[in-house]
């Protein structure tokens, strides 16, 4: 874990350095150009000023993200100064000089960063520049005149920036607090959190957000005591501080919605923080503390356990492989930034290339000819096309690290809430998945982790009584396996209770009573049914029976599967299996009359031409086929889709055994045409949703084939049976 940490930090550092060099290289010439212009007219292009402002703002943001506080404080002042210029104040040569000195200092620090990995050691120089910048600002703000219009626009813009900055600062503070909790002796983290809150307080005060200012002041005071060593950091301190951060975050959200921020729990929060600051260790009864904490959290009425998108913003800024809107800049970079739109266009074209290549390779004109050299050439073309495809797809891949990291805070809060001790282990976070998967996987993961904490892992006393270690183990793992990405959530809790689930299943009419033959896996699958929950008590975390249903739906959207394994008393493992390539699949093309359908190979178990003795017709006219002892219903595709079929006798055509989620059936078709790699194209939005069709594919001869959605088909058929 330590090595991973180090590597990850290196990566982030590299990313930060690349970005920062880029920014400086880009904008410094403009600042220098300002020098000559200021000598002549003092009149500057607004666009240039904005650009320079953004330089310092971005630098500040990234630096803050990585706790390079020297850089961030210096750039903060520069940014403030630039802002004054943006609003119309004249720039004088001495200001330009100041800005250039700021850039120089940042460059020097960046250079040292490359070796040293920290921006310590430059505090003195930084202080000098900060003072100078502040002087300049102070002297200029005395003479500020603006028109009414500008003021209004500026207020909106400034508020926007305040929101952005504040969220960044709060996130920074949260990170530091979590680190501090793990290592209470390491006061550096206390210092970082203190500085973040201090900046936040300053900004809030400037804008006149009294509530936010007061709360952050109390939090800052407490942190000050901790970082000075006057008070040692206890878990309850962290908890209250985190609650304070959440409250502040809410306030900021209110601002971004255009409201004045008001914190209803402000009084309580301030009192508690104050008390904590005043006391020395061990004075307040631990139990009382816990109770206070619980009431406070409940009275908040906010889902502070929700993972919000603002967090996303800062996270993605630090990822090297995340493409963003920027022009590519050459230089010392190993990374290039690409417009995500361009990537999508490229991927579309790659898809078209695959189709066109298939149309060449499978062209009907070639039938019956002996074309050895041609075929060799086509094989080569095929190989290259696949390679291009792979590379193109890999460009949209992002490591799961960001998503996994967010779970750390979630687990901590959940565990504390329930007085359980849980250690979250993250494995394989560097595993990369397509961007769309990342977006869809967050919610399911949250549900699964909540379940593991709420229902899986027992409280410390029970665990010890069972002979388990007091601290529960929760593992979040990701890995690639055979064209899929596996995301595994494993806990060593009490496992799933087969009897309780069976009982609930019977109660809800999902299974016939007392079906002892049901395998364990089938029993576990029941928990995915909507509204299914075996929790006796509905807490506000889980128990409403909504979670697992959502999980399954989200995973199915990605054409993935969920596997469950559980051992009573030992724990539960949930595996989310998601195919890596979303748009290109292996399909089996079949013919029914004049129509061709494609069935994803992953859904096909086998195909056969049935013999008369395998076929049974039930009294209600349902056709059943017996295959090696298993009885499977037959679905006549020509009837399902109301098309003409060449064959009507089951024994004349082909039966394809398809499966989804352990449910099987047989599709009756005229013939199997062959296996093909197909590019999935969505059916036009104009047509709307079509029964059991997930999209269409362009075949080798240019014709179109409908791709069957086996999951939907099996479900529809089951429902029809009643």
């Amino acid at each position, binding site marked *: 874990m330590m090595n991973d940490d180090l590597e990850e930090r290196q990566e982030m550092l590299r990313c930060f350095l690349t970005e920062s060099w880029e920014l400086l290289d880009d904008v410094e010439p403009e600042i220098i150009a300002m020098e000559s212009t200021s000598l002549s007219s003092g009149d500057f292009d607004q666009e240039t000023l904005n650009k320079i402002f953004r330089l310092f703002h971005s630098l500040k943001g990234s630096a803050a993200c990585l706790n390079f506080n020297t850089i961030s404080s210096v750039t903060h002042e520069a940014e403030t100064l630039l802002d004054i210029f943006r609003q119309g104040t004249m720039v004088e040569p001495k200001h330009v000089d100041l800005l250039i000195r700021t850039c120089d200092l940042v460059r020097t620090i960046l250079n040292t960063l490359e070796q040293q990995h920290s921006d310590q050691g430059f505090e003195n120089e930084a202080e000098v520049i900060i003072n100078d910048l502040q002087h300049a600002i102070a002297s200029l703000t005395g003479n500020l005149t603006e028109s009414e219009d500008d003021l209004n626009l500026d207020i909106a813009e400034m508020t926007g920036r305040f929101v952005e900055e504040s969220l960044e600062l709060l996130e920074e503070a949260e990170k530091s607090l979590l680190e501090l909790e793990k290592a209470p002796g390491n006061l550096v983290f206390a210092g970082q959190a203190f500085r973040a809150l201090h900046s936040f307080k300053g900004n809030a005060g400037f804008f006149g957000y009294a509530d936010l200012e007061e709360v952050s002041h109390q939090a800052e005071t407490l942190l000050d005591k901790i970082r000075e060593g006057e008070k040692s950091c206890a878990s309850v301190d962290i908890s209250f501080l985190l609650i304070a951060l959440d409250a502040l975050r809410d306030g900021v959200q209110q601002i971004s919605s255009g409201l004045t921020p008001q914190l209803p729990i402000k009084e309580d929060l301030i009192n508690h923080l104050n008390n904590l600051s005043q006391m020395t260790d061990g004075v307040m009864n631990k139990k009382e503390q816990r109770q206070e904490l619980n009431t406070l959290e409940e009275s908040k009425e906010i889902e502070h356990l929700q993972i919000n998108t603002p967090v996303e913003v800062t996270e993605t800024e630090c990822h090297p492989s995340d493409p963003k809107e920027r022009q590519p800049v050459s230089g010392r970079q190993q990374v290039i930034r690409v417009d995500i739109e361009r990537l999508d266009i490229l991927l579309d074209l790659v898809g*078209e290339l695959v*189709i*066109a290549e298939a149309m060449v390779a499978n062209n009907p004109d070639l039938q019956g000819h002996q074309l050895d050299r041609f075929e060799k050439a086509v094989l080569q073309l095929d190989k290259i096309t696949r390679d291009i495809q792979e590379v193109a797809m890999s460009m949209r891949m992002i490591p799961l690290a960001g998503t996994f990291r967010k779970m750390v805070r979630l687990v901590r809060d959940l565990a504390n809430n329930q007085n359980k001790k849980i250690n979250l282990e993250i494995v394989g976070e560097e595993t990369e998945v397509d961007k769309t998967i990342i977006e869809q996987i967050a919610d399911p993961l949250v549900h699964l982790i909540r379940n593991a904490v709420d229902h899986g892992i027992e409280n410390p006393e029970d665990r010890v009584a069972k002979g388990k270690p007091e601290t529960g183990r929760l593992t979040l793992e990701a890995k690639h396996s055979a064209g899929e990405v596996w995301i595994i959530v494993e806990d060593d809790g009490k496992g799933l209770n087969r009897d309780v689930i069976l009982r609930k299943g019977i109660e809800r009419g999902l299974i016939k009573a007392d079906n002892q033959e049901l395998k364990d896996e089938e029993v576990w699958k029941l928990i995915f049914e909507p509204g299914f929950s075996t929790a006796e008590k509905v807490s506000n975390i889980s128990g409403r029976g909504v979670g697992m249903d959502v999980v399954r739906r989200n995973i199915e959207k990605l054409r993935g599967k969920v596997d469950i394994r559980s051992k009573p008393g030992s724990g539960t493992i949930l595996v989310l299996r998601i195919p890596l390539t979303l748009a290109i699949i292996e399909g089996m093309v079949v013919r029914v009359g004049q*129509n061709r359908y494609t069935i994803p190979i992953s859904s096909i178990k086998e195909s056969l031409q049935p013999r008369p003795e395998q076929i049974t017709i039930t009294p209600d006219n349902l056709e059943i086929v017996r295959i090696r002892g298993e009885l499977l219903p037959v679905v006549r595709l020509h009837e399902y*889709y*109301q*098309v003409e079929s060449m064959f009507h006798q089951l024994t004349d055509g082909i039966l394809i055994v398809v499966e989804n989620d352990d449910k099987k059936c047989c599709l009756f078709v005229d013939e199997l045409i062959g296996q093909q790699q197909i590019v999935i*194209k969505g*059916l*036009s*939005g*104009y*047509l709307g949703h*079509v*029964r059991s*069709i997930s999209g*269409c594919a*362009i075949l080798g001869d*240019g*014709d*179109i*084939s*409908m791709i069957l959605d086996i999951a939907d088909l099996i479900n529809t058929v089951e429902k029809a049976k009643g």
Partner: protein
Amino acid sequence: MRLKERLDADLLEEDFELDEDTQENKYLTFVLNKEEYGIEIRYVTEIIGIQNITVVPDMPDYIKGVINLRGKVIPVMDVRLRFGVEERPYDDRTCIVVINVRDHVVGLIVDRVSEVLDIPESEIEAPPKIKKGEGSRFIQGMGKVGEQVKILLNAHRLLFDEEE
């Protein structure tokens, strides 16, 4: 069967190179069931000959299915059926007029494509109110061209209007 121009190549080229502004008052006219219809040329992206149509299940009868247009899958509508008129077997003069309305690309199957005509607003009269059947609800106006009358269609309603 790929891009087969049914019209004079010059005419088509000339009109398609015009930009948005000068496309006003220009209509592409086509024949359906012996009547002449027109649709604003600004919606028309191309005209192709009839080609293989893949059936899509569960669609209303006037949606014949989808076609492969240079790698893009687009739905096609038989305008006769849309108007409730009897179907006619497709021959080598049958065309698909590909239109783009509100980013939906749909092909319209018509008997024959005629020409692009300039019909100024002064020559367009309001649609007859009472006439039922034959797609009366899709009519935008009646355009007078010399001795003839062209029935001008509303592209939006043609695509999106539902049966009452």
